[in-house]
């Protein structure tokens, strides 16, 4: 029966096939003020529900912090948004017009969602300049990449991003030789090169010194506004220093949402974090 229904669905005469009607993801429609819609998303691994009926919205230009104990599903949530994991059900929309669940990782990246991994991941054998150059927005097809020449505007763009992340002094240094904190910034810089509308940043200050943390905080707050930023972080002090709005994730769904103070005084949050 379900096969028949599927066949009928495919053969409906009031619409055309997806392949004919290719999704246009060149322009994100955010006229309602939201950049990301995550609705009723559930995903389970071997019966364990890593994400359970997750709902949240990110506004344009917002800086949102996501906190939660280990195993709350923070990284899985990022995997879903960036196309690495497909959810069992639910919907994820980028703006009002782009359905992220139908797209592959590179397509999502091209559409304007940048992601920083938990472990700093830069290309160790390339220098800082080359790392940024490769990440630069543009046609990333095989032939276009082979023929790519750097224009002077593109050169300037790389220089200005390098300036933003504070790595101008060592542009020809191999990324593998950078310190842990510098690698984190370089990775954020690589995201910026893609001109993303939405930045997903996974544990940006893990393993950083206090000075580095402050600098990272400044960097992320300065990026909000022009970009929407979602930060997943464990470090409460850091979250308090940058967050306007915090979401607490617990067992795969949102437990509480609000300012840092509201969240901290929320009875359910206290139970989850401190036990009864």
């Amino acid at each position, binding site marked *: 029966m379900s096969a028949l229904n599927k066949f009928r669905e495919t053969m409906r005469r009031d619409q055309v096939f997806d392949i004919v009607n290719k999704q246009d993801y060149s322009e994100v429609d955010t006229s309602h003020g939201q950049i990301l819609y995550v609705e009723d998303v559930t995903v389970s691994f071997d019966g364990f529900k890593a994400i359970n009926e997750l709902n949240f919205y990110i506004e344009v230009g917002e800086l949102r912090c996501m906190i939660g104990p280990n195993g709350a599903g923070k990284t899985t949530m990022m995997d879903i948004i*960036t196309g690495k994991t497909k959810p069992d059900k639910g919907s994820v929309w980028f703006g009002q017009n782009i359905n992220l669940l139908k797209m*592959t*990782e*590179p397509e999502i*990246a*091209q559409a304007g969602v*940048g*992601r920083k*991994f938990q472990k700093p*991941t*830069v*290309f*160790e*054998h*390339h220098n800082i300049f*080359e790392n940024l*150059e*490769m*990440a630069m*927005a543009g046609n*990333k*097809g*095989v032939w276009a*990449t*082979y*023929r*790519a020449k750097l224009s002077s505007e593109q050169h300037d763009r790389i220089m200005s991003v390098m300036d933003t992340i504070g790595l101008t002094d060592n542009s020809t240094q191999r990324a593998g030789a950078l310190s842990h904190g510098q690698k984190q910034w370089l990775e954020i810089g*690589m995201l910026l*090169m*893609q001109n993303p509308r939405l930045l997903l940043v996974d544990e940006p200050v893990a393993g950083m010194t206090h000075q580095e943390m402050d600098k990272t905080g400044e960097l992320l707050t300065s990026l909000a506004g022009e970009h929407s930023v979602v930060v997943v972080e464990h470090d409460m002090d850091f979250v308090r220093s940058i967050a306007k709005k915090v979401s607490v994730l617990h067992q795969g769904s949102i437990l509480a949402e609000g300012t840092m103070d509201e969240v901290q005084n929320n009875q359910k949050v206290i139970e989850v974090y401190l036990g009864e």
Partner: protein
Amino acid sequence: MFKLLKGDRGGQVFLTLLTLAAILIPIFNLILPESSPFHVSTFTVTLLGKYLAFALLALSVDLVWGYMGILSLGHGAFFALGGYAMGMYLMLQIGDRGVYGNPDLPDFMVFLNWKEIPWFWHGFDNFWFAMVMVALVPGLLAFVFGALAFRSRVTGVYLSIITQALTYALLLAFFRNEMGFGGNNGLTDFKDILGFSLQSDNTRIALFVASAIALALGYLSCRSIVTSRLGRVAVAIRDSEDRVRFIGYRVDHIKLAIFTFSAVIAGVAGALYVPQVGIINPGEFSPIRSIELVIWVAIGGRTTLYGAVLGAFIVNYSKTYLTGVAPETWLFALGALFVFVTLYLPNGIVGLLKRKQA
């Protein structure tokens, strides 16, 4: 061309030596009398020509392994397919000079009592058709194989194993007489190419020079890839595939394009090899051959391109020498060489030279 070689000392030295060899060796062979101490025998010329074909093959392996991290243990398959395409052309040039004197059918088909030539042999009597096939057949196989493997994100040791399985499957298939490629014996007893006798000195020299030119062009084309942004992205894929995907590159497309290009180079190398050694048989598909050529690259030094060429020359010269003097020791020597290089020279001989310089 000069832009490609900017900052590539090793490449400059290599191409200079290659050019000198391509000019001087024909002179030493054809013009100097045999009594002269500088005379190069035709046997040596053919041997060097064979090494050049191997060097081109090593180059294609370095492109995918050194620069993109795909350890292909089946590149011998693409080499052999190119070789077979050339062999089929040469086979049909024999005409009625075969043992059975049949003007239409190669000897092995007469022997098998076949009445007419199989459909896939049609067209191979034309040199240019055969040359297109030399590139097309390995390229197509690599394309189909790569499209399936890279789309399903098969990487690392699993990919190595299935490339190995690929070449082994082809080995078994080509052993069968029914396949129509001469079975166990392969294709041999070639007479001439483009009307020139394969036994004459001039043809041998021409094949040597053609190999040198192919190697130089192969080097420059690989170099143009690795110095482009595409080459930098390939290295990035080697170092961190996920990151590349999340900055918006189609990793599978890039891998597929470079892998296919590399297979075409390997096919061309096979086509140059066959007329010089005079035979192509299923042994070229054996997994051991493919592993051996990975060892050439490891010994010469990965990620430099000219290191692969150097490795191919050193190992194959040692092989020629040792199998002449003490044949039973060769495999032990190869194994020992590989262990030594892995332990003490992780960047191969080129790495050692670079370290000395620095």
